[in-house]
Every structure is written in structure tokens, then in C-alpha cells.
């Protein structure tokens, strides 16, 4: 039975697309047949982050309108078996994601895939509501920062009232908090909300902590999901989060500042 996961946040720029790419790649690496769908109509970016921007021929809207079939639009990832990317359209028509068309596409994908990852646009408009509508689980991407936490709370309220599961009075959407761009150093200095603070405010179970890392930008520069970079702390943190998502126990890393060697610590401080 396919599981639909929405990656959402309310606020823009917190790491939804990075997370969608990493999550989809992580699940596929574990052998699950996975598709990641870009719901950000008009602001397509998942293709760039996944490095398949030159292979887009047909898109989500073409399939909804019946101009192409699913197999023509799905892009098979060249690095990872079982991973497919479903790009969106660059149209400016905001209502292009028609409800019945999306229902039909989702039903068709569910027959074929284990996991369907929906990369939500920012905001609480039509695109974001459509992305979360079919969700069985939600990954709520939050930065430890006031506006992001507030918007996450708003989107949690919307998940509880506007999703298909809420409408049909089924079991509520499973919620997972993913704290991204986390700086343990700044938390220790009292400059940044801690994991515990955010957990307490939002009261959503924590799926993972992704540390602030230069490797995230480097990965998106080259169109590679950051989870494929074995040297990246963020990549390792995403790997942990995916493992927890499928039920494995993993220690919560990256909560405390990295221990530095005596000399590096001393020189690091002197230099800063």
C-alpha cells in the first residue's frame, strides 16, 4: 500500500525541496519504489535540485490535462534505482492543479509506488492545500526561528482540518517535525531556539535535526540530493531521519556542538 508523504512548512526557504529530494533519495536507496512530485506550479525547482532539469519533457499539468501520460512525464533518476521525479509546470495559471486531475494522478501513482513524496510550495494557498490533501504523513520542515515556527503551527492546524483524512474523518495525518538549519553552537549561546523549545511549542514528535551545513548549498549547486554526499553532516542527518521514518531507532545526533580538538578549538576561537 502506497504511503503519501507531504513535505510542508508554511514558510518559504526553510528547506522543503532539499528535504523532499533527500527523503525521496533516502527511501529509494532503501529499496522502496519512490516518486517525488513538485507541487510548486510556476516556480519549478525540484528538477534543478535533483539534477534532471534538462530531461523534463512533460510535466504534472500536462498529465492532468491529458496531454501526456504518466510514463512520459516521470523522470527516472540515473543514480538511484527505484527513484522517479515528477516535475511540475512553469505555467502562471495558479488553478492549473485541478482537484479531480490530481486525484486521478495520485490514484494511478499509488498503484505503482511504495512512497509518494509531495514537495509543497510555501504559503497556504491552492498549491499548498493540494499538496497536503492526499497526505498520510507530513514532514513539517521548521527552522529554529520565530516566523518559521509560527508558520509551522499554522500548517499543522491546516493539516488537521483541510486534509483528505480530516475531511473523511479518518485517522489523522501522521505528523513529523524536522528541524533544519540547526546550529548547536548558537543554541548553546542562547541565540537560537533549541530542539526542546521547538518540540514544546509545536508538540509534534521529532523526526530529525539537520545541522546548518555548507554542504547543502554545494549539493544543490551540482543537482545532487545531499543524502548522497557521505561527507556531509546534513546528509548523514537526513539518512538518520529516513531510517527513523521507516521505524528504525537512531540516536539523535547534531544536538550538541561538535567537540573540537584542544588546538583547533583554541585557534578557532582566536581566529573568530
Amino acid at each position: 500500500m502506497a504511503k503519501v508523504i507531504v513535505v510542508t512548512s508554511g514558510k518559504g526557504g526553510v528547506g522543503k525541496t532539499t528535504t523532499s529530494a533527500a527523503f525521496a533519495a533516502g527511501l529509494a536507496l532503501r529499496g522502496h519504489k519512490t516518486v517525488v512530485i513538485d507541487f510548486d506550479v510556476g516556480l519549478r525547482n525540484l528538477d534543478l535540485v535533483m539534477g534532471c532539469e534538462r530531461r523534463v519533457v512533460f510535466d504534472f499539468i500536462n498529465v492532468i490535462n491529458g496531454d501526456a501520460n504518466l510514463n512520459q512525464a516521470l523522470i527516472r533518476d540515473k543514480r538511484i534505482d527505484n527513484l522517479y521525479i515528477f516535475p511540475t509546470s512553469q505555467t502562471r495559471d495558479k488553478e492549473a492543479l485541478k482537484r479531480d486531475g490530481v486525484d486521478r494522478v495520485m490514484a494511478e501513482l499509488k498503484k505503482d509506488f511504495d512512497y509518494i513524496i509531495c514537495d509543497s510550495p510555501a504559503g497556504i494557498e491552492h498549491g499548498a492545500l493540494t499538496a497536503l490533501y492526499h497526505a498520510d504523513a507530513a514532514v513539517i520542515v521548521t527552522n529554529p526561528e520565530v516566523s518559521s515556527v509560527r508558520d509551522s503551527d499554522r500548517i499543522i492546524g491546516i493539516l488537521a482540518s483541510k486534509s483528505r483524512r480530516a475531511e473523511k474523518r479518518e485517522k489523522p495525518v501522521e505528523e513529523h517535525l524536522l528541524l533544519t538549519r540547526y546550529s548547536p553552537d548558537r543554541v548553546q549561546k542562547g541565540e537560537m531556539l533549541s530542539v526542546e523549545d521547538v518540540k514544546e511549542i509545536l508538540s509534534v514528535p521529532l523526526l530529525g535535526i539537520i545541522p546548518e551545513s555548507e554542504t547543502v548549498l554545494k549539493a544543490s549547486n551540482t543537482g545532487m540530493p545531499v543524502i548522497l554526499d557521505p561527507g556531509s553532516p546534513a546528509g548523514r542527518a537526513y539518512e538518520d531521519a529516513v531510517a527513523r521514518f521507516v521505524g528504525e531507532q537512531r540516536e539523535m545526533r547534531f544536538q550538541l556542538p561538535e567537540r573540537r580538538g584542544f588546538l583547533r578549538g583554541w585557534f578557532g576561537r582566536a581566529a573568530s
Partner: protein
Amino acid sequence: MSLFDFFFPKRPATASIAKERLQIVLAHERAGRDSPDFLPRLQRELLAVVTKYVAVHEDMIRVNLGKAGSASVLEINIEMPAGAGSKAKAKAVPA
């Protein structure tokens, strides 16, 4: 204040300020989220009725839907201006 504190003043931990502000604003927003859509309209109509008899301001009337155990409680608070009682009577008499 020691000399050390003078040269290195302690700044308040801004994270705890952020947490407190978020808790307050979210408590407020969550309460509003669960309230039914008719409350603002009810508030306006009540205001129209009350102003027939007493000179009250828009911000002097508050309508809230709360919970007491298993029952829902519709709470209506109307703040009366000082000396409103006599005015209310005077207006009500000719009617």
C-alpha cells in the same frame, strides 16, 4: 558590578525571548483557529442591538466560545460605559 561585567556585559538570551513570544502568540492564534465562523457576525449583530439602548463601542463587546468540561460555553462580555445604566433606562422608556 565587577570590572569584568563592565567590559563584557551579559546580554539576555534572545532564544528565551523568542520562545516566550511564540508561546503567547500561538496560544492566541490556536484559540481563534478553533472558533466557528459565525462568531464575528454574531458579535456585530449583538453590538447593533446593544447600541440601540446603550452607547457602547465596538471594542467593548467580546464574544468567545469556550469549553467547560464536555459542554461548550458561549461567553458574551459587554463592558458598560460609566453611567450607562441611567441612559439605558431613559432610552428604553419611550419605546
